[in-house]
């Protein structure tokens, strides 16, 4: 769906965040971008979202057109909700910005909230929700436009371990149901190994792609206890250490 070709990004401050990054993202992929802090993961995500432009290389979308608003969903590390708006109004926001009337959007908005397990919390304000629930609202907001690609930048990093495990499992279910493409930034090896079909390792300064590992797992309720999961974590850890040493 998207081909990233030899993309580079150097900021005005002189920091070279990305160099010669190439990656093919296929429809329906679940890609984890894994790497240490500062290796340019967020920068790459922002380039895909069109929030920033590369200095070198290019991004080629399969239909040749830049994605329209709503084709891309973005989930930030913090839920970044409007604090004065209810869960429902927050999820409605992308459709509202596209000019969809509430009467046409309501069913879609409620379905999105339902999908992330928040039925019944439509009129709760962010201040009344837990961190995990806020993140669920944020995911519902990203899904409500039925995006072709969902970009997630360390969405669960600030959550406690129990909440994180639940959300990871639920995200996986949603991905299977919705069938959209996901690019998921994380610096947790466990998270990458659990969620992703393809684990892309990045090395820092300048950020490049060091290696890619394809997951053999079929995620289910027992995955975290599965020896194959432990083996994958081990493979990824070794590969990441190798990549860091080489850098």
């Amino acid at each position, binding site marked *: 769906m998207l081909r990233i070709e030899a993309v580079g990004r150097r900021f005005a401050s002189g920091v070279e965040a990305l160099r010669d990054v190439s990656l093919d993202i296929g429809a329906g992929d679940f890609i984890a971008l894994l790497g240490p802090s500062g290796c340019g993961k967020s920068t790459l995500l922002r380039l895909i979202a*069109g*929030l920033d432009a590369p200095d070198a290389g290019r991004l080629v979308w399969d239909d040749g057109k830049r994605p329209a608003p709503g084709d891309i969903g973005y989930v930030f590390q913090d839920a970044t909700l409007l604090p004065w708006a209810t869960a429902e109004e927050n999820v409605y*926001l992308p459709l*509202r910005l596209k000019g969809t009337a509430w009467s046409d959007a309501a069913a879609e908005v409620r379905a999105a909230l339902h999908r992330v397990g928040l039925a019944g919390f439509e009129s709760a304000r962010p201040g009344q929700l837990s961190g995990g629930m806020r993140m669920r609202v944020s995911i519902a907001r990203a899904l409500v436009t039925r995006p072709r690609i969902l970009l997630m930048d360390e969405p669960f990093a600030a959550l406690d371990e129990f909440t994180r495990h639940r959300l990871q499992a639920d995200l996986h279910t949603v991905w299977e149901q919705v069938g959209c493409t996901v690019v998921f930034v994380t610096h947790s090896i466990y998270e990458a190994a659990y969620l992703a079909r393809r684990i892309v390792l990045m090395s820092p300064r300048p950020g490049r792609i060091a290696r890619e590992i394809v997951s053999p797992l079929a995620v289910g309720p027992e995955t975290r206890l599965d020896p194959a999961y432990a083996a994958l974590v081990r493979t990824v850890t070794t590969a990441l250490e190798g990549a860091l040493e080489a850098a």
Partner: protein
Amino acid sequence: MNERLLRFAPGLFGLLALALWEAAVRLTGVPVYIVPGPIAIVGAFLSDPVGLLMALASTLAVTFTALIAAATLGLAMAVAMSASRLAHAAIMPWAVVLQVTPIVAIAPLIIIWVGDPFASLVVCAVIVAFFPVFANTATGLASVPPELADLFRLYGAGRWRTLTLLRLPAALPYFLSGLRISGGLALVGAVVAEFVAGSGGFASGLAYRILESGYRLQVARMFAALVLLSGAGIVINIGLGKLGDAILRRRGLSAVAGA
């Protein structure tokens, strides 16, 4: 018990101070035209309540007109400034100039230029009250987290939508806390302008009553007018605070601290 004591502490302390004051005045025998006791001050008020309250109403009319004008102007300028860096560069220095110029120094000029007494008082009070609401709102408009601004950009929101759905709501708590400060300042501005205008002889506000009583050595009446003024200031401050809290609570927000 402790909580209740804390709540009533300001009132009790005030009563105690008043009692001490009255006692001191009586014991030392200071003449009433130099330091009147609280009872004499109440007496001065009761001897002409209508005159003093009318004067208060006149001052408050200037204050509230000025506050509304300052809030409107401050909001509009802050929005204009947030819309373009050019406007920001052009407006900000002049706002600071206005802020640091002592109102007493320019009030005579304004009174000459504007002509109409009420309008010239309002203009002076607006000049004093403008800055907090303006600067706070500007801060609020710029306080939007970059991720939220990115989100609006991602969904192709234009400037107008970003302003009405993101920046203005985000600035509301800042605007309200600025409004509270400006409320007190509008009163100060009105009184200062009345003092300057008062010597020109066309004012009817409380400041004029204070001047007039001073000339006649009616110190108790001066105090009575002063008490009305500070009472009005306290009511404005608390009232605007409560109004702001109520508005924010309805929107599920809390006030900004010290903005």
